[in-house]
C-alpha cells in the first residue's frame, strides 16, 4: 500500500468514526426505548393477584404454625 493510499484510508476511517458512533448512539437509544416501552406498561393483574395469594398463603402458614 502506498503512503497516499494509506493516508486516504486513515482519513476515511476518521470520518467514519463519527458515523459509527452515531450508529452506536442510535442503537443505545433504541434499545433503551424498547426496554422502557415494556417497563412503562402497567403491571398485569396476574402478578398483583399472584403476590396477594403468596402473601395470604404465607400468613396462613405462619398462623397454622402457632396452632
Amino acid at each position, binding site marked *: 500500500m502506498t503512503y497516499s493510499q494509506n493516508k486516504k*484510508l486513515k482519513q*476515511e*476511517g476518521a*470520518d*467514519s*468514526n463519527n*458515523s*459509527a*458512533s452515531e*450508529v*452506536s448512539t*442510535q*442503537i*443505545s437509544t*433504541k*434499545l*433503551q*426505548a*424498547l*426496554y*422502557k*416501552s*415494556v*417497563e*412503562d*406498561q402497567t*403491571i*398485569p393483574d*396476574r*402478578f*398483583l393477584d*399472584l*403476590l396477594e395469594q*403468596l*402473601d395470604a398463603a*404465607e400468613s396462613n*402458614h*405462619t398462623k397454622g*404454625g*402457632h396452632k
Partner: protein
Amino acid sequence: MSTAEKELAPGFKKELLGSLPSLRAFAYSLTGAADKADDLVQDTVLKAWAKNESFQMGTNMKAWLFTILRNEFYSQMRKKGREVQDTEGTFTDSLAVHPGQDSALDMQDFKKALDQLPEDQREAIVLIGASGFSYEEAAEICDCAVGTIKSRVSRARLRLAEILDVKGASDYVMDANAASIGSRAYSR
C-alpha cells in the same frame, strides 16, 4: 417447628413488586414474545418467593431476581428445546399500545434485529445498555467473567449495526465502505 425462618423479611414483597417492570422488560428481551415473557416472570416470582430466605435484604434484589429469571429461562430452554424462542409477532401488539414512540415501525425493526443476536450477546447488551447494570453485576448475573460481558456487548453492538445498516440504509447513512471501516474502528 420454627416458623420464624419461614417469615418473609419486611419489604421483600414491596421490593419484588418494584422490580417487576424491569423483570418483565428483561424477560421480553430474552423470550422475544409478550406471553412467554410474562410466564417466565411468573415462574421467577414463584421461585424467588420460595427461596426468599436466601436473599439478604439490603443487597441488590433486582440483580438477584434477574439471576433467577435468567437461570429459569435457560433451564426451560434446555427442557423444551429451541421452540421456546418465538421471535415473530406478539411483541408488535404491545408496541401498538405506545404510539408516543417516534416510530413504532422503526422499533419493530430494531426488535427484530435484537432477536437475531445470539442469546449471550443479547442478554449482555440488554443488561448493560438498558437494565442499567454495571459490567460487574452483569457478569455475576450471567455467571461469567467481566471481560466476557464486555466482549459480548461490543460484538452485540457491532452485529446490530451490521443488521440495521443492511436493513435500513436510509436510517443509517453510511456507505458499505465506511460501514466496514467504521465497524473495524468500533470493534477496538
